[in-house]
């Protein structure tokens, strides 16, 4: 699912010093999450200080297994609330990753009626026509 309408630009992520590593990894087809080596905790979205131990120099990037389950989702069915660069309908899924972090993304080759809470999914990467790279989720064996 999630196909684009030609000629309408797609919004780009806002990259700053805190999330540069996250988006650099995506460009290289890797999904990473911010991890505090002292607390052994993941934090998303990335931030400049560990909210648990208040350290600013123990934050590192750890690669995700890329696997998770659909925790919740919405389906855009009319143009009123959808972004015009997308063909309808399209889903946005909230995926709970094995690391415990939850992220949102579009889906890849999942039919609208197959999108369900609890569906096991894994990450894949898509090169967009405008040169940016985004991650999506496709079905996987549980």
């Amino acid at each position: 699912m999630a196909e684009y309408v030609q000629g309408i630009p797609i919004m780009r992520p806002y990259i700053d010093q805190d999330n540069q590593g996250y988006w650099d990894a995506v460009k290289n087809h890797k999904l990473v999450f911010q991890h505090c080596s002292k607390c052994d905790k993941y934090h998303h979205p990335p931030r400049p200080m560990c909210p648990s131990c208040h350290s600013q120099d123990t934050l590192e990037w750890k690669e995700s297994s890329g696997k998770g389950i659909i925790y919740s989702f919405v389906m855009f069915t009319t143009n009123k609330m959808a972004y015009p660069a997308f063909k309808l309908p399209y889903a946005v899924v909230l995926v709970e990753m094995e690391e415990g972090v939850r992220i949102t993304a579009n889906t890849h080759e999942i039919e609208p009626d197959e999108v369900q809470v609890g569906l096991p999914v894994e990450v894949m990467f898509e090169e967009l026509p405008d040169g940016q790279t985004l991650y999506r989720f496709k079905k996987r064996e549980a």
Partner: protein
Amino acid sequence: MLQEYMDRKYRTDNKPSVEANLIKNNVAIVGIGQTQYTKNSGRDELDLACEAIQNAVDDAGLKMSDIDGFDTFILDRLSLPMLINSLGTPNVRFSCEVSGGGGAGCAVAVHAAAAVATGQADYVCCYRSLNEASGHRYGRGDDFIEYMPVALTPNYGYIWPLGFVTPLGWAGVWGRRWMHEFNITREQLGWWPVVLREYAQNNPEATYFGRPMTHEDYMESPMIVDPLKLHDCCVNTDGAAAYIITTVERAKDLKQTPAIIAASAQCCPIEQEIQTIYQRPSISGLVETWYVGQELYRVAECGPDDIDVAQLYDPYSIGGIIQLEELGFCERGEGGKFVEGGDNIRIDGKIPCNTAGGLLSEAYLHGWNLVIEGVRQIRGTSYNQVKDVELSMVTGGPGVASSGIILRR
């Protein structure tokens, strides 16, 4: 806050003492004003704001020059300096623009009340002016094209590139999780918009006045962002509204029965981003609303059973119903059952809600119309007046840093 919420145990030992609260029973809303609510005002926001503020000043029995403070929340599209230039208020010594979007629906009153209680200003005017029906519509899919090509903030950068650009979508994610965990049905959701539409039939200023809706109409309305149907979503409004806050002492010399603030609260919890509250241990409930409710009850020294009427910020049906749970009007997960058939939220029900029609059927004035209706219920001038109102509650938006007030006679 989050830990207290997860444990469902509100701590009183780490809160400021009720006796030291300078707002409680010392500050009141003394004037209310609005323009017509339309679909095409043909006027700019500044123009509309001037009319609503003049109406609020007249309602209070004040002079424009008495106003010495202004307060609103973010996402306003008019310029405060030009507002001051237009109104000719010569002594403005306090201004505030609260973060949190609709969550600040009542935080504006909280901050204005704090300013008045601590002597920063005497008469603070809280204002909102919008042309969201005819002009810039917050929350439409194409609304965000103006920010191209890069998302406005780092947080939006994780969601906007997915075509995930509207609050209805963001809330739909936690809304679906709530429905999933507690088996809430679409039929149940429908009763919130249906009852609000009934209220709007008695309110000639409401957008949907003269246009009733049955539960069947609701069920047949189109899906907008699954799980939300058209009539789960708020209206678009052109219009403005304002209210004026001062001390109870000064209110004695004014025209109206003051709506005295018995309690006020704001909550900015951890793992908070506008509606995208997805990192919390649970997203099938709203810590900010729960906290605001607990704090309001603590300060006002009352409980949910003492509240006579409530105006809950409901940009979508789910946002209204889930607040009934978090504010203690029903048990967690029971919101669907509670609104079924509609009687519990009707005028003689357990807790009459959004009695002017709310954001779904009166107007989407970013909650200002809810505060105004909360005041009318205290004055006894609502189009759907609840009998013998002692305590009237108003809340800010769900899923964002939220707020609330309890008004009393």
